[in-house]
């Protein structure tokens, strides 16, 4: 394992010491490592286990339970397309299909340039703007194919650092 950058080490240390019991920081530590590695690779899991004093199994128990921790490689931008009932009512399926077709990936797949991963997501809490998706911590409202095209183009062009929880 190559050493972690010092800022990240400091950050991990801060996360663990900010709480009374290191276990509480488990998700935060995994977020931070996911941010660093791009996803939670096995090395990240071993790191997290070291930092938290938990076993890799205990962390795997959590990482695989949750939706926003990725144990397999994902693109720079993870597109969470809400597929719950309100968005469904507004033909979310076709938005989802459209995204997959435009990007040329199967559901859950990552584009070849490593930019995008398309995932269906549980209701993201933006139902009044259905259909909706969440990328980079930002909601995109009342999607249409044209709107999707615009978003993809904007993200492709942009140099914005992906924002994920960390």
């Amino acid at each position, binding site marked *: 394992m190559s050493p972690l950058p010092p800022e990240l080490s400091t950050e991990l240390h801060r996360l663990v010491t900010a709480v009374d019991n290191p276990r509480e920081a488990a998700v935060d530590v995994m977020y931070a490592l996911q941010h660093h590695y791009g996803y939670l690779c096995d090395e990240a899991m071993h790191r997290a286990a070291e930092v938290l004093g938990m*076993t890799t199994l*205990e962390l795997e128990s959590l990482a695989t339970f949750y939706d926003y921790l990725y144990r397999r490689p994902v693109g720079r931008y993870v597109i969470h397309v809400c597929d719950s009932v309100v968005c469904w009512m507004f033909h979310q399926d076709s938005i989802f299909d459209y995204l997959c077709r435009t990007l040329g990936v199967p559901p859950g797949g990552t584009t070849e340039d490593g930019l995008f991963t398309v995932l269906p997501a549980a209701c993201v809490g933006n139902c009044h703007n259905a259909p909706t998706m969440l990328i980079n911590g930002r909601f995109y409202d009342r999607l249409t194919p044209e709107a999707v095209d615009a978003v993809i183009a904007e993200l492709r062009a942009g140099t914005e650092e992906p924002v994920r929880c960390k």
Partner: protein
Amino acid sequence: MPDLIIDGRPVTVDKGVSVIEAAERAGVMIPRFCWHKSLGAAGACRLCAVMFVEGPVKGLEMSCMTPAADGMVVETGHPKAVAFRRQIIELLMANHPHDCPVCDEGGHCLLQDETISGGHSLRRFPGRKRTYQDQNLGPFIQHEMNRCIHCYRCARFYQDYCGYRDFGPMQNANRVYFGRFEDGPLDNPFAGNLADLCPTGTLTDKPGRFVARRWDCQRAPSVCLHCSLGCNVTALSRYRRVARIEARDNAAINGAFICDRGRYGFGYQSAQERPRAPLAAGRPATPEEALRAAAGLLAAAAKRHGPDAVAVVGGQRSTMETQAALIALARAAGWRAPAFFAAAREQAQARQALYALTPPRARSLADLAKADAVLVVGVSPLADAPMLTLTLRQAARAGAAIFLADPRPLALPLDHVHLPLAPRQLAAVLAVAAAGEDASGLIQQKFPLAPELWPRLEALAQAMAKAKRPALAYAPALAASLPGDDRVGLFPVLAQAGTAGAALLAPTDAPGLDELAAELAAGRIKAVIAVETDLFAAAPALAARLDALEALVVLDHLPTPTVAAAQVFLPTATLFETGGTLAASDGRLQRAEPVQAPGLSVLADGAGDHPPRDYARPLPGTDPAPAAFWCDRLGRALSLELPRHPLAEALAAHPVLADLDPVTLPAEGQRPTYPGREPATPESPPAQPAAEGLAVVMETPFFGGDELSRYAPLTADKTGPAVALLHPDDAAGLNLADGATVALDCGDAPATAAVRLHPGVARGVVVVPRLPRFDALPPNLGPCGLRRRETP
């Protein structure tokens, strides 16, 4: 005390008992998957739903989650309950593969039973089945995840009950997966219980796979021989070969579980190397020839040098039947009384440890789990008495304070305080524990050089003083220093499964093996008869002089070096073949039943030619006989007058055991009324002065450390490396670094070991594994006893 009615049967139970348990007491078995009496309720499977007709709870509810209450009327067969349970089964079967015919659990599978008894026989569900990939969980447990019904028993046992954290649930929803982070053997030395616990074929006994269907096996209640606790097991045998060992419930001892040493150490019974043929003059012989040869040699030695020239060595892994027969034989022949212990002092200590178990003070393992403060002295639980570990963990989970005073480093899956102290300091810990809340003066006086331990010792004194149910688990060497306070429960941990029996039965004036070695050196012993013991391990000093003997007669079932050195050898039967009586370390006598006849396994005999077609020849490998039988025949060959039932007569004549009848022992065993301190016990030995150099402390490897599992193929290769553990300070004094190779002085050839530094080792102590190469180490290594070996 709630009174309730279950299926028309009134039952009264203690407060807090769940309805499912109350029903069990009323003789009603409510279907269940996740509930287990040792693990408690999880409410996960929902199969135990019953109808509450009257009382504080109404309607369909889970009987495992509902505490019994006054006035409840419960119907387990209510149509709604039956329909609900049937649907639960349908849901579980929706994803369960129909592979019962090839599943190792098939036929003793709870899911199979509940499916059939619940009447689910037709698949309505049109969907496909879920599939998982399996993991390799090491040599003992087989993983077949597709069969999982997610009762969470495994995870609750593994993590909550045992405290190990490398196996558990992953993912969520209908993808939940029980396994490890990656392939690999399970850390948990109690993991074998998963095979018993899992209600389906998801986790099965790997070595027992495809060996035999469980119902095809002969089964017998037996007792584990791999440490002194006397855990109850069921031995399963097929084709005259022990196929597997399962835990057998004994609420007072092991509860529902056993350790993996006990579960997987059985293979010596059918090992190819097991000596099965009698030898005379070192050559195969018929039993009669061997008997005649033995009798001739022993009689000749006695005649030429006097009966005192015949020494008798008994083993601590033998049944009490064997021990009693050997004692009777020696007595009738006028030979020296059998030596069972390394020194006469050890024998006295072991007896004293047991005699201390007066009714108010004796504790069973189960009692220990209910203690609120436990001090363990001179015992390394995982090495010396594995199930004690689980017991201590249950006590700790219930809030007990656990203290362990032992020179060895302890890696225990429970909250505890370790006091790493050299053996000679342990008695002082008992004094501190008995000193009451204000022990600081005593602590400073007794441990002037270990101020870092003072706070822990004070915590110990306080915890023991405050506790309502304090208990003490101790090695017999500390028996003389036990506190007199009746409040403190006692639980000795002895060396081996037969130690208690030997201590109770051996004549008080029996010599120790050290004395025999000295007598042999002095030329006063000319013949030795050794029964089920390896002299090279038990008495290296004696074994070193075997050449000087005129006769060495050995009875055993393990291929030990002693057997190889024997002039006359008589093969004995194993416990699986003889059954017998054993005294557990808590002083309880228990009975093990034989599960099979001696004799070569059909598989080995047929050599692929099955069934064996040559019916005329005698069955091969049937020569082994109970050691007690050989003793009797030997006596007859010597024309001696022997008791017909040596054990029964020994018990009848025994001051403490007179009331016990080995034939009618109750299922949970029986503990005689011990008298407390023997009037004639020697005063506690004075604390040995700190000798120069390092005290040698042996640690029994979990597998292959006890003699039986050393000869069992499954466990023999798992002893771990030959390391010498040192405290970093001691190592620094000796100028040794971690990983250095050292030579330990033991007799002629030094034993080599790799040094490991561990802060959990007591100062002034070197800890080595109990492996043959270290058997001859002296109790104390002088200044030159441990030298660095330049690596070539």
